[in-house]
């Protein structure tokens, strides 16, 4: 029960009193092996009803396998899947109350838009008039009015995407699953549809699990992000918590660009980076004095300064490169720590005059420094 307890505690969104024990989706100690590979290795999570949870991770981290297990397209080797208080572990996909959007969208090429969307209703022997009405309603929901007669082969990428969403929602499932739903779309369309799909999910209040490898997509759309690595939950929580307080170097890197600095604990809430003391927020770590730790600092939180170079919390170095993108600019500063130069883009555009070769300081505010596991 202890593994489960930690999983639930970390995965649950900020306490929502409306969520009873019965609602939503519960995963208990899920395992799935393919030969010698543990694709999913003991995952326990509670996904509260009405929320959108995304499984984020690099390819091969087990996120799609986990989604297929939830859908019932594969069976787990161990563990339990409970949907709305009912144990569905042994039930095949067609006997679970789910709707799923596939990576390839998987629209039936031999059926037109209406028949694709109405497929699940026809299977349940719904009356023709009722199906037609529901399909109309769904077409309106995804802004495809009037395209019902169209062959799915003659739709644009965005339209196909919408048909897949409408089809998955047709029978009002209690769980909505999305497997990298935007991967077939070009970048601009993807950004727009992310917002649209999130708004739709909130409007319908449907429990949703999404798989993605795109950190930006996960942050745009999710209530809770579950970061997976090698079949295990690396960290789970609200997107901003994962971004601001990553617990591991993996999480820090995966959630966005970051600087990882080796440091040594020299006192309570003080670490030494190179020759300089850097102050941390109270309670930032539980290591003893002398311990080696890893600091993660987002480039946006690290500011280039040209005064007070000898102050605490400021690393001295030489600017090796300036990437000026107009709106933002990044300074690459070699602070003599070995490894990659530090990237700093914080502090607005105070460092506008800084040029390659200048001696500058990089200020690391206490709130920006997070101690992470290597």
């Amino acid at each position, binding site marked *: 029960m202890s593994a489960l307890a930690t999983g639930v505690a970390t995965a649950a969104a900020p306490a929502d009193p409306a969520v009873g024990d019965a609602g939503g989706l519960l995963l208990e100690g899920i395992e799935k092996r393919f030969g010698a590979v543990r694709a999913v290795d003991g995952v326990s999570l509670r996904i509260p009803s009405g929320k959108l949870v995304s499984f984020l991770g690099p390819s091969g981290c087990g996120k799609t396998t986990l989604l297929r297990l939830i859908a019932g397209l594969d069976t787990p080797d161990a563990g339990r899947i409970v949907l709305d208080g009912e144990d569905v572990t042994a039930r095949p996909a*067609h006997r679970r109350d789910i709707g799923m959007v596939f990576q390839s969208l998987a629209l039936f*090429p031999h059926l037109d838009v209406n028949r694709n969307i109405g497929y699940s209703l026809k299977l349940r022997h719904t009356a023709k008039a009722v199906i037609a009405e529901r399909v109309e309603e769904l077409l309106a929901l995804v802004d495809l009015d009037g395209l019902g007669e169209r062959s799915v082969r003659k739709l644009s990428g965005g339209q196909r995407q919408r048909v897949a969403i409408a089809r998955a929602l047709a029978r009002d499932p209690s769980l909505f699953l999305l497997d990298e739903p935007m991967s077939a779309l070009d970048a601009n369309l993807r950004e727009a549809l992310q917002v649209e799909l999130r708004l739709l999910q909130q409007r319908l209040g449907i429990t949703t699990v999404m798989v993605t490898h795109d950190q930006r997509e996960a942050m745009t759309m999710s209530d809770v992000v579950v970061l997976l690595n090698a079949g295990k939950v690396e960290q789970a929580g609200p997107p901003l918590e994962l971004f601001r307080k990553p617990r591991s170097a993996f999480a820090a890197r995966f959630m966005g660009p970051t600087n990882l600095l080796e440091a040594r604990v020299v006192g309570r809430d003080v670490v030494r980076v190179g020759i300089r003391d850097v102050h941390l927020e109270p309670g930032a770590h539980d290591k003893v004095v002398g311990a080696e730790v890893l600091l993660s600092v987002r480039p946006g939180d690290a500011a280039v300064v040209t005064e007070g170079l000898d102050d605490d919390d400021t690393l001295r170095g030489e600017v090796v490169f300036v990437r000026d993108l107009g709106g933002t600019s990044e300074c690459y500063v070699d602070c003599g720590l070995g490894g990659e130069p530090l990237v700093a883009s914080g502090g607005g555009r105070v460092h506008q005059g800084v040029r390659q070769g200048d001696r500058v300081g990089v200020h690391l505010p206490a709130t920006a420094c997070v101690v992470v596991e290597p």
Partner: protein
Amino acid sequence: MTDLDIAPAPTTREGEPAPNDDEWEAPRPRPRWGQRALVWVPALVLVAFFVVPFGLMLATSFYRRVSGGFYEPAFTTDSWARLASDFYVGRTLYSVRVCLLVAALTTAVAFPFTWFLTRMRARRQVPLLIMILAALTLSEVIVAFSWNLILGRASGITNVLVWVGVMSEPKALTPGLGAVVAGLAYIAFPYCVITLFPSLKRIDRELTDAAGTLGASPSRTFRTIVVPLARSSVLAAFLLVFVFTLGSYIVAQVLGRPEHWTLSVFISDQALFNANVPFAAAMAMLLTVISLTVVGGVSFAASRRARLESV
């Protein structure tokens, strides 16, 4: 003005903007002699080895048979008149019926079989495919005599059934129509599988998964998704088996009584044993025409249906 030397946007000679990449088409190089030969050589071979013999056969069917097993050039419709007799019309219709039955049975078994084969992991799929391809290397003669043994009274399958207790005494299942159909289906099965395999393999797993998540049981998924998507290749497999079995003569001869003989058996019988080559030629022509008619008719109906559906 900056004094950077930036080249102007590329333009065509007339000063119009360069065309889009989408619209631009590379000028086609003129085919060389080597490339032309790639088309012409097979075409010539086809003419030399198919059209010419076909013409000779057509001519032969009008030749006159002379005693002693020979024939001489002439123009007589004797052979065709004999072919139009009740007996041969009956045998022709019988042949078509048997071959349609075999084609239907073989396709009905091979289609679901091949579907499951394409869904298997490679580790199990490859040995099965090798076994099926190995069956192709067996000659028709060996297959026919093997089935003769399997269905015979002395050593056949009925002995097993007696031993199990299903039958009271062993019985010969050959010669008979059942034996002919079984033998033909056995030979046609691997061809049917390899015809169906590529197109069934191409059906994306996510399509059937999607049907499952929408509430379709595996059998429902097969009927509503796989069957419609595989229709044209199933049709192709059916036609292949039909044409193939229509031309097969050893199986029906070994496993059937004369009343089970197909037209092909009569052709070999006339050509080899009765030395009536003109008559055999006439029957062969008829067989070819039947094959082409069935293939053409079914293809036409299928394309018409596809056109109607696409509208």
